[in-house]
């Protein structure tokens, strides 16, 4: 802890900080690159839609099946007249997936398959879906996404301000694009479970963003009353100040999901657990990234366009230039006054961070 705690302390005091906002162009670039890759992936490879979107059936046998995968494939093909995908799951049961059959045919196929596999039909779990089922879920998902986005933008615009709402929305779209892009590129199967996971990212992705924005809002409350920091400076401090928190919340959120993904999914093979947790895992990681690297710098960008902020930036820069000039002057004077002793010149700049530090987080204007 102590090491991490120290890091937290140093981040808190601003002793160390990464210039997220200043280097935003790099991160924007990376994000645009990822987004383009994702879109190209979507366009070229498309999504590997699960059986729920094509119509079909998934039969799951009890554990300890002696039937081989190849044998089961033959049985399934004979019973249905369609190609079948058979997987052996971790617990020894078989998962037989047949695309292109409708719910009307399924009962007959189930009976035949059960006979072939030498099973009581009661013991053969079946998940049969019509071709429009997945579509319906997806449509509902889009509908939900739309409603949520509108509501959340309104809420954030009221709770914070419209710029933050816009930035949060951009970050959200960014997360969803990346997640779907990864699905397209890797070729993971898209199932209703995936859709559920994707929709959950909505709330989660914004959680981190909201935490950073909250700190940002607080710290920039009286920003125009001081001339020490520009909006971007404070935005950067906010990110750095909440960095530990963001990392912690993301790690803590990812841990159960990882448990779900690797243990729950690994034990059962493909299934709802796996589908949900996979898209959550990808989406959470993307969400953490976007709240730090995209959302806040974007707010700073938008904010810097405001006339008041422009004026502030001007004042801050002027003041800094003046201070620098004075320092130079002082240094010159010191150099002139005492050629041999360079210490005062060194002391000056060294004091600088300390004083800046004390004013940090206090844009109240009390200290000038």
């Amino acid at each position, binding site marked *: 802890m102590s090491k991490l705690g120290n890091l937290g302390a140093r981040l808190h005091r601003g002793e160390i900080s990464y210039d997220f906002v200043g280097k935003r162009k790099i991160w924007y670039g990376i994000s645009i690159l990822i987004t383009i890759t994702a879109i190209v992936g979507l366009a070229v490879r498309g999504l590997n839609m699960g059986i729920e979107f094509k119509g079909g059936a998934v039969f799951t046998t009890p*554990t300890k099946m002696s039937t081989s995968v190849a044998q089961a494939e033959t049985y399934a093909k004979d019973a249905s007249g369609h190609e079948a995908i058979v997987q052996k799951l971790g617990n020894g049961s078989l998962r037989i997936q047949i695309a292109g059959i409708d719910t009307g045919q399924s009962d007959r196929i189930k009976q035949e398959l059960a006979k072939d596999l030498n099973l009581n039909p009661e013991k053969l*779990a079946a998940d049969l879906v*019509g071709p429009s089922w997945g579509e319906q879920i997806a449509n509902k998902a889009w509908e939900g996404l739309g409603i949520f986005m509108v509501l959340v933008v309104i809420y954030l615009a009221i709770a914070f301000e419209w710029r933050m709402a816009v930035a949060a929305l951009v970050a959200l779209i960014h997360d969803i694009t990346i997640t779907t892009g990864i699905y397209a590129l890797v070729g993971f199967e898209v199932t*209703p479970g995936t859709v*559920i996971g994707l929709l959950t990212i909505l709330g989660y992705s914004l959680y981190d963003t*909201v935490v950073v924005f909250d700190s940002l809002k607080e710290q920039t409350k009286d920003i125009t009353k001081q001339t020490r920091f520009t909006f971007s400076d404070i935005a950067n401090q906010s990110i750095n100040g909440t960095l530990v928190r963001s990392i912690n*919340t993301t790690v803590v959120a990812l841990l159960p999901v990882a448990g779900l993904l690797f243990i729950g999914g690994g*034990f059962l093979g493909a299934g709802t*657990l796996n589908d*949900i947790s996979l898209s959550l895992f990808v989406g959470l990681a993307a969400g953490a990234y976007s709240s730090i690297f995209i959302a806040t710098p974007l707010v700073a960008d938008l904010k810097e366009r405001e006339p008041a902020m422009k004026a502030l930036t001007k004042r801050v820069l002027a003041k800094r230039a003046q201070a620098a000039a004075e320092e130079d002057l002082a240094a010159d004077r010191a150099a002139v006054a005492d050629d041999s002793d360079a210490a005062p010149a060194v002391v000056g700049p060294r004091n600088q961070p300390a004083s800046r530090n004390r004013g940090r987080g206090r844009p109240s204007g009390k200290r000038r």
Partner: protein
Amino acid sequence: MAAPKRGRSASAQSKPGRSLALILIAIVALTGGMFLSGNTTPRLGIDLAGGTSITLKAKADQGSAINKANMDTAVDIMNRRVNGLGVSEAEVQTQGTDNIIVNIPKGTNSKEAQQQVGTTAKLYFRPVLASEPSGPAGQSPSPSASPSGSSSPKPGASPSSSASSKEKASSSSTASPKASATSQGRAVSDALKAGSTPSPSPSAPGSGKPSATPSASASSGSSAAAKLQAQYATLNCTKPDQRAKVGGATKPGEPTVACGQIRKVWYKYVLGPAAVDGTDVKNAAARFDTQGASGWQVVMNFTSSGSKKFADVTGQLAKNQTPQNEFAIVLDGEVVSSPFVQQAITGGQAEISGSFTQQDAQGLANMLSYGALPLSFQEQSVTTVTAALGGEQLHAGLLAGAIGLALVVIYLVVYYRGLSIVAMASLLVSAMLTYVIMSLLGPAIHFALNLPAVCGAIVAIGITADSFIVYFERIRDEIREGRSLRPAVERAWPRARRTILVSDFVSFLAAAVLFIVTVGKVQGFAFTLGLTTVLDVVVVFFFTKPLMTLLARRKFFANGHKWSGLDPQSLGAKPPLRRTRRPAGPVAGSVDPKEA
């Protein structure tokens, strides 16, 4: 950091015991309620408990609108249907705007119920224009069939043809060789014309003569009639694919061909436009006729508009000859019964009698009562899960949850040390509340824990832990500013509180939208997520914060023990301010020295 002075809650800090007592009482009360009501475990969804779940989607192609009233009626009908069939605890509910989910727990009759729900069609009474047994091709459809060949087993064998109207016909009159003439194409087309122009000329009722006399004058619809006739001629009802083709899609106002199985023999029919709607039937019941010898019969009661329509149509049918004095009860495009009429039935009550078994009669009564769905439905998905598989999934889910929880706890212990006690206690309280409320919601609002809901609960561990982290990090920030623990705990709270509320609100919003918009599995997930988000807020406000206030008074934490997670030194607090710590002083009076 300059903290806003407002919003510091004095009550929360001064009476932490009260909040803790409150939440403990709530937990005890809820747990007590759980044990008293006997629902000590959450109700499991079909995907975990085993059983069959059928999702049906309403189709808007029949002219009737998909609206709440129609959906509710459909649910009501299906509910009575599945439960009327002796499937206990079957559950029918709407989801979203146009879906109905039927959950049938494992055990008795799930297949039968599935079929019954599957025949979620509309019920019509249509006049029969022609009918004959539909055997293998080549036998019955041949136009030159001899009267003897076609005086098929129908009359004696089928309950419907021997069924009579209120005045029970003698069984001799039902023995008319009605099929003889209808096997000829001409008769069919005539019959069709008769159907399209509702002015059939009277013919001797109940006579044994063939009813082939071209009685009606043709007026219109001959091409459609010809098409129908051709369809009728080639139709072979013993073939399932052909049966499927003639089903459902026909508009009620048009004549159609249909199949019906009566006593294991398939018959094919040409039917006129629907005369009475299934919705006109008020109710129907199976009854054992104790006076007559007819055994089981079905008694129908019509609504006022229904009885008028029924009187009209029976009045007209009674004038016709067999089979044109029959009306067919058509469910999902399939003829379930075709009793004939001897005279107009007025008064809104009718009996169908025949050699019914009790089961037949009850089945028919059920269909008549509940068969009239206001919408037609399409099966979207059918999931059958064996209990063994469901149990395994639950196991895997719980295991994953336990491991996820363990990982979170390990992380919290490593990172927050002593503070993790607070976090773990809060997680525990949160988990208990979630469990108890889920158990109670089972009987209350039919909440069932399905696999996605388990998933949601696991994901919620992260959300709940997030709130503590926000608060803890705030406290640590305050300590870094140089405050001692007690003021730090109080000063950190208002701001952490706001952050927690804002971000929880966003999470809750997502869950709520998800819950309202989506259907099926997704809803369970969204519900759990929303529930745990609300509980998170409750736990943080009424448990975590008061507990933190209490613990701040303990030496272990207040003095910043190395293992407390709040050691100012390792947190990097500013040394000069540490000596200003005043543990004994009034907390509210501790003002940031820098600000003074």
